[in-house]
């Protein structure tokens, strides 16, 4: 996972256990494949709350390896700050027909 910056807004990502697909923790404490649905943490307390929720889902084997990553907000659009995490929100840049960007 990419390095995170102290103080930057953050969201929580993981992979679904059953199929490995990248998912993001939503405000409603469920998991979405779309980064636009994420819950954003702006304080250390909110970050911890995301991590705790992630850990509780990992403990019941819904998802694996939850971790925080930096996000940027442009108006209503949410984007991963680092290229690595951005790739996870889209899919392989060399196969635009695959991954989340394929709009499946």
């Amino acid at each position, binding site marked *: 996972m*990419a390095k995170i910056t102290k103080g930057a807004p953050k969201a929580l990502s993981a*992979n679904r*256990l*059953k*199929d*490995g*697909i*990248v998912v993001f923790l939503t405000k409603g404490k469920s998991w979405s494949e779309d980064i636009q649905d994420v819950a954003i943490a702006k304080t250390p307390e909110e970050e911890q709350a995301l991590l705790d929720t992630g850990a509780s889902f*990992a403990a*019941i*084997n819904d998802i*694996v*390896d939850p971790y925080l990553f930096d996000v940027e907000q442009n108006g209503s659009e949410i984007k991963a*700050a*680092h*290229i*690595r995490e951005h*790739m*996870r929100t889209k*899919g*392989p*840049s*060399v*196969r635009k027909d*695959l*991954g989340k960007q394929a709009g499946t």
Partner: protein
Amino acid sequence: MYRYDEFDAQFVKQRVAQFRDQTERRLSGELTEEQFRPLRLMNGLYLQLHAYMLRVAIPYGTLSSKQLRKLARIADKYDKGYGHFTTRQNIQYNWPKLKDIPDLLDELADVEMHAIQTSGNCIRNVTSDQWAGVAVDEIEDPRGYAELMRQWSTIHPEFCYLPRKFKIAITGAPNDRAAVAFHDIGIKMKKNEADEIGFEILVGGGMGRTPVVGVTIKDWLPKKELLSYIEAIMRVYNMYGRRDNKYKARIKILVMALGIEEFRNQVEAEYDKIESPEVILPGEEIGRITSYFAPPEYQKLADTDIAYEEKRKADKAFASWIATNIAKHRVPGYAIANISLKPIGGIPGDATSEQMYAIADLAERYSFSEIRVTHEQNLVLPYVAKQDLYALWQGLVKHDLATDNLSLVSDIICCPGLDYCALATARSIPVSQNISERFADIERQKDVGELKIKISGCINACGHHHAGNIGILGLDKKGEEFYQITLGGSADDNASIGEIIGPGFSSDTVVDAVEQIIEIYRDIRQHKKETFLETYRRVGPEPFKEALYATD
């Protein structure tokens, strides 16, 4: 090629059953991810950037048409219609679901294939020369010994929890096409003074963050002692290899720390404790296994085929493909046909299921149903009669498989990089695609001549950049992709590690830099036959540095 007997079939079926049990225990929560991770890795299953990735072993790169069809079917049924051939002669699927893996493995077992030990800190898929058995320079076909090592290393009770992964390669020819000097153990078949064929054993080679060319630990080893000698090396490594730091855990670090003399002494001391080589490798087993690799039933053909020669004269595109992609065969009238998986602007090593089916059919028709996978991420049909080459080529053209670029600029080794890999620091495929597009004109590539470009998306060097004549390493510099260039690396029998040429380049400028390096080479080569590597070895880095970093 090797065929499973009752024993092998039963073994692989049991291994699938074991993994099915482990998968079910994971899905039910009986196993935690921490417990399951090493178990799934032992069976080639990674969790990558976007999804799970399954790496299937293609032992020493040999496949039958039936097996390749199964790989195609798996791509369609469990994945997204394609697969990626790797530098270790494996194939990777990028999108399988954990819950489907046991069924997928059952289907593989039906065609005598598996994913055992394609990951984890164990002995990985044993690799070899893709031209084994057909190369003109070969001393002996190494595949029987590769198969012996495959069997011996499979779920070896002592060597499945090594300090780090362990890679073995073997070649039967003096011209090394298997990069043996860059393996933990590299094996070269060779004759001793009495003209007996045995093995030279190299140890401690590798890439990664500490690239090392392997050194000779045994100048000549009798065939029957192969497994016992390797067992002694493995035992020393298992007991004394570092486990405190994963970046210092490969055998090369142990060999360097002890020095080759002391390491050899320790191996010999362990070797002396092994009762007798016969216990580990019964003599009849060598004969039984090597007999599977007898040559196919070749036709008796004249070495020159008139119709083929006429086609070459008449069809320029065909002639160009012949000139680049065909290698001389040891049997008169036959040729080794290399299939490039590097179309201009394509993803190196990727093949669609449709292409896999097509190649399986062509191999069935023209190459005794056999296909080889190369560490340079291409495929080979090893037994094509010259009279069939034109028909084969036409078949390849139909499926975009006739790119005439073998060993040229656009025949690039490239890891999946940040497009797929969780460890990557930068993308590698787009760089490869851009270089390939820049040199789309094959005549220009031919004018440049043999040139090995190798690209890795992180320091782990899966794209072999250290061994590239031009090596490119993708790094992350404050969130931006950034590429370091090395020159002068080579994976052949005169192996060398590339030297960093200077400060790195951005993704916008790296292709220009590569082009500039190639243009400098064209200017300073002594004649058209002097390859890039020869020129570099003659002149060193200076002319390239001057041009790349000139401050005018």
